[in-house]
């Protein structure tokens, strides 16, 4: 049985919890709530997981929480020192995504958004250049493949 690897969706949050961007490529199931509620739930879950991990860990950590997996998907988490949070859901075959998320941040987000004087901080990203560069970046990943229906 051939297992294809894939990226389901991606969220980008700022330090205040505002969802700056959301994209999906291979999502089979919606959360059953509005997108606004879903973003809040996702952000809240991640905030709580980080707090939980920092309290329960018997050892000091550098970055803390970086990923979790369930029986069907894996969530990868990367946070920059400025509080930008990148969250990517993939299938279970995908290993370490930290470098990929860091690269996404530095080559796409920083180049298209941070360096763009017209992009206001704290607001949903409107830049088409950003959206298309992000989409190309994800589609070019070695583990991305569109699942057959």
């Amino acid at each position, binding site marked *: 049985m051939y297992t294809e690897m894939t990226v*389901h*969706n991606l969220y980008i949050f700022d330090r205040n919890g505002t969802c700056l961007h959301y994209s*999906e490529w*291979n*999502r*089979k*199931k919606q*959360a*059953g709530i509005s997108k606004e509620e*879903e973003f809040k*739930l*996702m952000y809240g*879950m991640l905030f*709580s*997981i980080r707090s*939980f*991990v*920092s*309290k*329960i*860990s*018997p*050892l*000091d*950590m*550098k*970055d*803390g*929480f*970086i*990923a*979790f*997996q*369930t*029986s*069907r*998907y894996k*969530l990868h988490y990367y946070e920059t020192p400025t509080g930008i949070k990148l969250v990517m*859901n993939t*299938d279970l075959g995908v290993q370490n995504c930290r470098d990929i998320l860091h690269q996404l941040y530095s080559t796409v987000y920083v180049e298209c958004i941070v360096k763009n004087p017209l992009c206001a901080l704290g607001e949903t990203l409107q830049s088409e250049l950003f959206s298309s560069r992000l989409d190309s970046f994800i589609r070019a990943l070695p583990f991305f493949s569109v699942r057959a229906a």
Partner: protein
Amino acid sequence: MAIFSVYVVNKAGGLIYQYDNYVPRTEVEKTFSFPLDIVLKIHDEKVIVSFGQRDGIRVGHAVLSINGVDVNGKYTAEGKEILEYLKDPSNYPVSIRFGRARLSSNEKLMLASMFHSLFAIGSQLSPEAGSSGIEMLETDITAYLHPFKPGTLMNILFFPFRCELFDQNLKSALEIAEKAGTFGPGS
């Protein structure tokens, strides 16, 4: 590979059993002169390092003892407020021991029920149908959290329990698992 602790949580999110197998405690004791260059603040009724980490003392570490005597939350053993005590130059030089705070029973109860909710949300936010809750949580020091899959056992156990036979068997099972190395990165 080491198994640090075991938590058993019932279907309602209540902690019914907890066992610490191996809990490494990184603690640093140093003598300081006035003024203290480490910024402290009160959080969750404990005095913790907020800024100025150095020499093994990390942000988030709690004040564990002063001059060799264990503290009592945000008070010294004699009942004085630690932050006030450390503002007085006449109390220096002072020896303070810093380290990760130990979890109280109440905190463990709260963490268990917090995790129970997170476990469920992980399932709700799944982009794929038929997902379980969080089965494995990964951090940068590769400390994995493996929630035990609910089985028939969990239907019988609902209330906190203390059973010596369970303790003994659990310890044996942990020893076997550690030697066999069944839990670890890539397993």
